[in-house]
């Protein structure tokens, strides 16, 4: 499984052509306690960088964008019921949605972990 990162602090974890999307530990820390999550609908077709989920922390509203183009195949309802999961386990139980990626080369073009860590350092 490869994981890639965007400049907007989303990650996408690839398993075959299915990518699990969420926000990084760095992003959740910057946002503060999440209190609301609105997920995209399953079946929705997302363009790269399109706003997919809406999140609200105690401080501000933000969007989770699709790191690459794809179709939403599953959303994590657990974080809708308990948004704090995104804070406590952003890259595990706090994932947002899964997309069926149309172009694997687009994923490869995103930052790898080393490059992402250098970006936020």
């Amino acid at each position, binding site marked *: 499984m490869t994981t890639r990162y965007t400049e907007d602090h989303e990650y996408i974890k690839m398993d075959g052509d299915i990518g699990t999307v969420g926000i990084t530990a760095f992003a959740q820390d910057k946002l*503060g*306690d999440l*209190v609301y999550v609105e997920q995209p609908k399953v079946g929705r077709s997302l363009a790269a960088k399109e706003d997919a989920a809406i999140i609200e922390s*105690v*401080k501000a509203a933000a969007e989770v964008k699709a790191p690459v183009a794809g179709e939403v195949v599953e959303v994590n309802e657990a974080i809708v019921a308990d948004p704090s999961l995104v804070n406590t386990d952003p890259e595990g139980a706090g994932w947002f949605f899964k997309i069926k990626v149309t172009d694997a080369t687009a994923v490869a073009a995103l930052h790898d972990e080393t490059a992402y860590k250098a970006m936020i350092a």
Partner: protein
Amino acid sequence: MSETLAKTPLFDLHVSLGARMVPFAGYDMPVQYPLGVLKEHLHTRAHAGLFDVSHMGQVELHGPDAAAALETLVPVDVIGIAPGKQRYALFTNEAGGILDDLMIFNTGDYLHLVVNAACKAQDIAHLKSKIGDRCEIRVRDDLALIALQGPGAESALMGVARLASRVTDLTFMQGAFIELAQVDCLVTRSGYTGEDGFEISVPAADCEAVAKAILAQPDVQPIGLGARDSLRLEAGLCLYGHDLDTTTTPIEATLNWAMQKVRRSGGERAGGFPGASVILGQLDNPATVTRKRVGLKPEGRAPIREGVELYDATGNKIGVVTSGGFGPTVNGPVIMGYVATAHAAPGTRINAMLRGTPTPVTVVGMPFAPHGYKRV
């Protein structure tokens, strides 16, 4: 980023406590500590929280004519504030709008004013130009201000007071000079969270020692500006520059309670403050008040924030949200805004335009979380 931020006397303490610092009203202030906004909010409601509010302005008015002079700037009974008592007030302008809101405490010797950080330069200039010839205006930049709030505030303060009875003697909106951690402080039983609690004016040089002594008491946590905002919003308290400004009158803001009878039409000292004709006109003829500040409750859980427009059922714009966010105690969105008077009655259903989607919200009374003031 050429702006140089001022530091409060507690800056080093905030940093050592792991605070995240942000610019606020020209100061480098703690928005949150490692506990985080949500838990800081809940901790304050359940136990006690210590806030640094040293960015606020503290001004003293000295002289026998000070109270009467101040009455020319606020629609409030200042002369009637007994020694040891505190009162909420508003500086108004000629149009009946609000220049700032403030607290006035009568020490017995002089009036101690606390004004908003963002307005303090303008407030001081206003005081000097309008009543500087009637009383002595002392700007107390040498004083810091901290707030201890929550149901555990009383016992925490008793723990650092030389005479604990000086603390328990106070009820809501009373104050006294009390020795805390060997420092003489001006303590009032008031605050900005809706909870029981105290605001403590302390010499800047001694502030850190007093703050550390209070933080060493059981169940006291440092609380940042993030939780301060969600606490005041749940308590239904206005934030100047958002819920109040130069275009809103005290009547539109439903702050009628802040204007005592003696300053109203028919009162002994009726009028005589800026904008009196507008403000008293609205008080005397409620039908002329076109909009009112209300609480709003949505059906869903999406927070609705400042600037979101409000519409009636037929799509006419009837108002705007002035403060909105998530209320951790309410465990849901809390919203304050202005609506046309016809839609201001509790129970009225209107729509908030949230990201282009009309979202049903209901007008509700405030506060959203019950107040915990110690009134007796």
